[in-house]
């Protein structure tokens, strides 16, 4: 408990000078752009692996936002969250690649539009 109660002080203090000009707004902007690009890519691309990478991009956008907020609020909750997010993203990546391999073995293509038997 002692360690936890002194931990916040470690996060305090001014930003390193190289990042002196960057504010929370800039980090959020980057994260929002990443999220938007991921969303657009997901909707427009038809290659399964690229679609999956787009969802990863969206996950990492959330990660950037979390870390920026964590620094802004001067607590470690956001950083803790990011560790969990990375874990889940890794599990999801394993699952996605397994599914993609499964599909590729059946039809020898990664094109999402070749899998459209179910509709109506």
């Amino acid at each position, binding site marked *: *408990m002692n360690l*936890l*109660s002194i*931990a*916040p002080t470690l996060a*305090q*203090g*001014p*930003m390193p000078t190289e*990042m002196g*000009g960057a*504010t*929370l*707004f800039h980090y*959020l902007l980057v994260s929002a752009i990443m*999220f938007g690009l*991921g*969303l657009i890519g*997901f909707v427009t691309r038809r290659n*399964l692996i690229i*679609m*999956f990478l787009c*969802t990863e991009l*969206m*996950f990492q*956008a*959330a*990660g950037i*936002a*979390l870390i*920026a*907020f964590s*620094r*802004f*609020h*001067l*607590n*470690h*909750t*956001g950083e*803790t*969250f990011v560790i*969990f*997010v990375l874990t*889940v993203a890794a*599990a*999801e990546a394993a*699952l*996605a690649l397994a*599914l*993609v391999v*499964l*599909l590729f073995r*059946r*039809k020898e293509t990664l094109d999402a539009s070749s*899998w*459209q*038997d*179910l509709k*109506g």
Partner: protein
Amino acid sequence: MIEKIFTLWPEITLFVFTCVVMILGLSRSLSVRRLCAPLSAAALAIAGVLALTTTPDAKGALPHLPLFVKVLTCAVGLVLLLQLAGTADRGYETRVARGEAFDPLRSTRAEFYAFFLFSLTGLMLCGNASDLIWLFLALELTSLPTYVMVAISADRNSAKEAAVKYFFLGALGAATFLYGFALIYGGTGTTDLQGIHAALSQQMATGGINSIAMAGLVLSVIGIAFKIAAVPMHFYTPDVYQGSSSGVASMLAFVPKTAGFVALILVLATVGWVSTSPATHGQLPEPLHSLLWIMAALTMTVGNVLAVMQNSIKRMLGYSSVAHSGYMLVALLAGPGPEGASLTRNGLSAVLFYLIVYAVANLGCFAVLGCLEKTSSDGKSEEIDHIDDIRGLISTRPLLAWVMAVCSLSLLGLPPLLGFMGKLPIFSTGLAAGEIVLVVILGLNSAIAAYYYIRIAKNAILEQSPVRPAGEEIRDAAVPARQFAGIIAGLGTVVLAIIPISSLAIDGGTFRHSRSGVTNSPAQTLPAPVGSAEPATADAPTGPVADATVPPTIAR
């Protein structure tokens, strides 16, 4: 912190059993492999008993929600288990019985049962969530195993296609609500649900919720809409239900949907349903109210209108799953109502009760589909799916026909059945909250829904059985457990309507109001690092721009 662990005995038990099941299913001996299903059942039974005996952690705004979710999960999980029997590995086991050497790599039984239990563990954890991180992990634990279950539920291309569609939209949904959670954290400075509630009520008392937290709430609701199959994220539903085997489909209609609604209740409870006086019905703050209103109206209408056009029963049930989410969103929108409201005034109880009602009836319909097989065009036997396949079922298998009819009429909400008991509170809470237009849309939708539910019931019990050419006959699937599941569900829709089971749901939806601004003391509930940090926003690395968008909101 440690006392929180003691409230988790059911989950821990289930998890330990899951690991055992995962190993036993790989055994070379058939009798050991067969233990998977009984062990899963034992795990669920023990977890259920533990859930009833463990003292829940009653700190949050919804003190009895965890108990409700755990008991419901174990009870429905047991019936689902009956229905999932024989789904994994049936073809492979017959080949092994014919003399092929058993190869653990080609067997899917272990994963199937283990992932089923993992998913249920996730659902139980969802009910217990007291933190956004916890909620995120629980939702993912609920969903990730189901993607695999869809893929291995049947050995045909459509199952793989369904799995991929489900997975990709699932990942999109997860990313969306994760971003929402991140923004909620940004707008309030904590991920603890009670802390968020305190921070947001403080913001509401002093000039409105800040835009970042509000954007976060909106994104969370849209992302979680994937789990409940509500409108912006509903596209996958019919495809996935049709592609996967019936047992897995009925599981998908229960487990992620329940998890989604529990998560929605928890997230919306952080804003609260604000009312002017304790006696009147509260309302969600504005952008959220409109969002849920539009979602509810579109979800019901889209689901029902598209269901009417289907000839595949599974697709029909898929769209009906969308429509039922719309009904439940109406009650969710209405909110918990005044202090100590009964089932007919408390929207949260109505949602929780409807989850039971929907799970039972839906399970019955899918169980009947799972009990019957026919030969598909490529010579393999597959579950029946087309509406004509159940025509005249009454003459050959009267019991299944009645189960089908009773369950589909219960989904419609015909008066003596359980479905009616579930739908009534939804109407009355909607009216009590003053959502007249929405209730009218709900009524119109019930009328549209009557067309396809009655069509199913009529095909099953009123039509004559057509003469089917040789090779296209309907056969019984050699899995008697599924018939039990169907009969239990069919009886459930009749018997549960008489037994007052709704009391559990009423307790579950009990909402602890906190009207006079900040009533929770966040100093006790926040984790230590947050609680001890000084509100040092002046020192925070933020320029004037960030200060304008995020007012210092570290509430304590």
